[in-house]
């Protein structure tokens, strides 16, 4: 090789990243997943077995981040290894790589948790529930598609963007692009959350009359109890609006 990583190796890295957490352990956390993800690219860069072993050992140290965004770090590490090799091999960069891995894992972990767990997953579940009202099959498909289309695109783009942006990838993810994505996915999830109760009410299987009213009143009461500790002006207002809307739809 001429010190360049082939695009097919980057694709292989993306595919391996799907099993990023398969070796999760409390010694090195995601270290096996990271080393295996980097393996196709490192093979391009280090044809000599000794060099390859040294490179992989560097990446078998502690690593832990949000698994969905780990490809951003992997892409940046591939770029760093390539750059180091073109400049005559690894020197003091070991320390730099370790510091970069630590910094990126913390930033990407935070951004990933906010985007996936507090945004995309609730959005997918809510869209799934709305589609579920039409048919259980649509519900499953909607949930899986709403989650997995962005999930796979972001994983694949992570390798590419990390490779292109190098160590700057953390700034990109933590900057306007990442913040905007989190803001919008959470807004959409909030929109879907608001749409669920009225749509539940018109579902043919919702009982009519007193039973239906009891169902709605019970839901609202339990929702209120769940929210007890977070009760505030806006939430109270929202629940009242919910109750009034319910009444209107029922009438």
């Amino acid at each position, binding site marked *: 090789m001429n010190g360049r990583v082939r695009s097919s190796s980057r694709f292989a890295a993306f595919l*391996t990243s*799907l*099993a990023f*957490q*398969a*070796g*999760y*352990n*409390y*010694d090195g956390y995601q270290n*096996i997943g990271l080393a*295996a993800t980097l*393996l196709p690219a490192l093979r391009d860069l280090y044809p000599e077995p*000794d060099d*390859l072993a040294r490179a*992989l050992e560097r990446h*078998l140290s502690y690593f832990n981040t949000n698994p969905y965004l780990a490809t951003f770090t992997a892409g940046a590490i591939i770029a760093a290894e390539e750059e180091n090799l073109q400049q005559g091999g690894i020197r003091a960069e070991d320390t730099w790589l370790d510091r970069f891995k630590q910094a990126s894992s913390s930033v990407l972990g935070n951004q990933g948790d906010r985007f996936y*767990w*507090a945004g995309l997953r609730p959005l*997918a579940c*809510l869209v*799934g*529930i709305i589609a*579920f009202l039409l048919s*259980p099959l649509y*519900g*499953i498909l909607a*949930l*899986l598609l709403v*989650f997995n289309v962005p*999930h796979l695109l972001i994983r694949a783009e992570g390798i590419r963007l990390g490779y292109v942006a190098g160590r700057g990838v953390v700034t990109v993810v933590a900057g306007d692009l990442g913040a905007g994505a989190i803001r919008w996915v959470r*807004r959409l*999830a*909030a*929109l879907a*959350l*608001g*749409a*669920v*109760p009225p749509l*539940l009410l*018109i579902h043919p299987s919702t009982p009519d009359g007193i*039973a239906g009213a009891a*169902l*709605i009143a*019970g*839901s609202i*009461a*339990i*929702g*209120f*109890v*769940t*929210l007890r500790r*977070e009760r*505030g002006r806006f*939430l109270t207002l*929202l629940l009242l609006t919910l109750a009034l*809307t319910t009444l209107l*739809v029922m009438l």
Partner: protein
Amino acid sequence: MGEWLIVAGLGAVAAVDTAAFFQGMFNQPLVICTLAGAALGLPYEGAFFGGLLQLLWMGDLPVGNRLRPDIGPAAAGTAGGVLIAINAGFIDLGVGGLMVVLVTLPIAYLAGYLVRVQRDRRGRLARRARTAVAAHHPGRLRWILLEGILQSAVRGAVVTLAAAGLVRLILELPWLSPLANQVPPYALLAGMIGIGLGGMLGLFRNRELLLWIGGGLLCGTVAAVVLA
């Protein structure tokens, strides 16, 4: 026997998806219970149980160091066990739903604890990975990942079968028979809707997002009026 194997297989898929491979939400109760229902010939009942558990778990955030429930295999096991019992004719939808909710909760936490135990024991895998790399066998890293996936699958299948077995055991108890047809499925649904929406509202509690929820409520109401 075939029914139990199907349930165990679904539990294995859910466990692998939770923390080993792909992580594409195949472990969500809505997905796994509906699939269990479809496979066992009770799609409506499976979907109902999945909906109940999905609503119950919707507001849960899987972050931080606390013990996190592993809902997928637990849901597959309890829903599968109840569906098998419905097929056999000795439980109705209401009691089945109640059973699914009550049994899934402890089993999911037990399954979450087993995930921790498994990860703790995987220090062995990390040491083997280092040895393989040092011995110039880097290709073994992928086999080690595959082993991790298989370990998760076995854990999921075992948890699922244990959950289904526990459901079966509880159903044998005599005190359940007076409950037959006494639990209205919609009462359960109301409870889960309340918990689900309440939990979700907790996730979106800033002023701007509450306005978006209000917008959604408006859009949903318009759609409901048009569709009704």
